[in-house]
C-alpha cells in the first residue's frame, strides 16, 4: 500500500508479548501489517485480510481478535500477545505437543492462528468439550487437515472425552 507512506502517523505504546514497545504507525494501517512489517513478528499470518480465516489471530487484553481487521493505533495502551509470545506459555506447551502428536499440522500456515484461538478458548474453558472446541475454532480455517486432528489435539489438552 503505497498510500500508507504519506499517511498520517501516530506514536503508540503497548505491551507486546510481555515487553513494552513504542512504534509509530500510519493511523489506518492494520495491526497485522504493523506486527509483520514494522515489528518483524512474522508468526502471525496473512491469509485472507478480511476476517474470514483466522490466520492473523492475536490476543488483545486476553481475547482473540483478527489482527487484519484491527487498526494498529488501537493497540495503544493494550496488552498484545502473538504466537511468538506463547513460546513460554504452559497451556501452549501442551497444545504444541498435542498438535505434533495428533498430526494436527500439515503445511502449518493455520497453526499460529489455531494456537492463539485454542489458547483463548482454554483460558476461558480449560475443560472444553469437543463441541466447545469446534465453536472456539470456528473462526479459523485450515485447508489441509480437515479439522478432526486439530480438534483431537485441543481435546487432548482439555482432557475431554465428550
Amino acid at each position: 500500500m503505497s498510500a500508507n507512506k504519506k499517511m498520517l502517523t501516530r506514536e503508540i505504546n503497548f505491551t507486546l508479548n510481555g515487553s513494552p514497545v513504542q512504534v509509530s504507525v500510519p493511523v489506518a494501517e492494520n495491526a497485522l501489517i504493523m506486527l509483520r512489517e514494522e515489528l518483524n513478528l512474522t508468526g502471525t499470518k496473512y491469509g485472507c485480510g478480511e476476517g474470514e480465516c483466522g490466520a492473523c489471530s492475536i490476543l488483545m487484553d486476553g481475547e482473540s481478535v483478527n489482527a487484519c481487521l484491527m487498526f494498529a493505533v488501537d493497540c495503544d495502551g493494550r496488552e498484545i500477545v502473538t504466537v511468538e509470545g506463547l513460546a513460554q506459555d504452559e497451556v501452549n506447551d501442551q497444545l504444541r505437543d498435542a498438535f505434533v502428536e495428533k498430526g494436527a499440522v500439515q503445511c502449518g500456515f493455520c497453526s499460529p492462528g489455531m494456537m492463539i484461538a485454542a489458547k483463548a478458548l482454554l483460558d476461558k474453558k480449560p475443560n472444553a468439550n469437543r463441541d466447545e472446541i469446534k465453536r472456539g475454532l470456528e473462526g479459523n480455517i485450515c485447508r489441509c487437515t480437515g479439522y478432526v486432528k486439530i480438534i483431537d489435539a485441543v481435546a487432548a489438552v482439555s482432557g475431554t472425552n465428550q
Partner: protein
Amino acid sequence: MSEIQNYETPNSVSEAADILAKGDVTILAGGTDLMVQVDAGRVEYKSTLMNIRRVEGLRGISDEGDHLRVGALTTITDLLESDLIAEHGTILTEAADAFASVQIRNAGTIGGNISNASPAGDTLVPLVVLNAEVELASKPNGSIVTRTIPIKDYFTGPGKTKKEDSELLVAVIIPKPAAGFVSTFDKFGSRPALDISTVSVGLGGVLKDGALTDVRVAFGAVAPVPLKATATEAATEGKKLDEATIDAIAATAKDEVNPIDDVRATAWYRKEMIESSMKKVLRHVSK
C-alpha cells in the same frame, strides 16, 4: 477525500460530539466492517478518523428498571455472555451466538452493527422484535442534545439511517418485555459461522395456553431494511399454534416478503427460506 488529516481518540461523549460537530469525520469502533469496506474501496475515509473505543461509559449493559441500556461499544461477545440480555431478550443472545466467529464477536460492537445498517446485520431483527430504541447524541449549540428513535423506523436503506453526521450512536434502549414473553431467532446463511445471513427471522410474543399475544415478527436480508412483518404478526396474534395454523402463518410470511436475487440467493429461494424458517421459530416458541 480519502486522506486522513486528523486522528482523534475522544475520552467522553462530549468530546466525541465536539469532534463530530466540526464535520467530515469517520467513526471507528471495532473496525470489523470499516477495515474491510475501505480495503475493498467501498468506503473512503473522511478527513478526521475518530476512534471511539476509549470513550468512557459506552461499553456495557445496565439494568435501568423498566429497560436495559446497552452501550454502543458493547461487543457481540458481551451480549452473548450477558445474563440480563439472556433474561430479557433471549432473541438477542441467540443472534449473538450465531454471529460470525469468536474473533469477530470480540471486536465487533452493537453500535457498529446498527450503524453499518446492513439488511443482514444480525442484531437488527432481534432489536426490532424487542421494540428497541437507539439513542443519539450531538452538540448542535455547544451542549449535549440526545434523541431516541425506535429501531423499526431507524433504517432508511442499505447503509442508511436517520442518524445525522453530527450524531453519535451512544446506546440502545431495550424495554423489558412483559412476563411470559418468549422470543427466538433463526438465521440461515450458506456457512454457519462467518456467513452473512441469507435470510433471518425473529419472533417474539407473550405465550399463554399455546397462543402468542403482543406478537412481533421481523425479517432480515429480504428487504433494503430489516422488515417488521405486520401481516405475519396479525396472522399469529392470539391463535393457538397448532400445525395447521403454523403452516398458514408461514404462508403469510412467504407472501409478505418481496426479496431480490443477489449473489447469495435468488428471490425464490429466499421466499422458501422465510416460509420454512417461520415454521421453525413458531414451533420452537410453542414447544
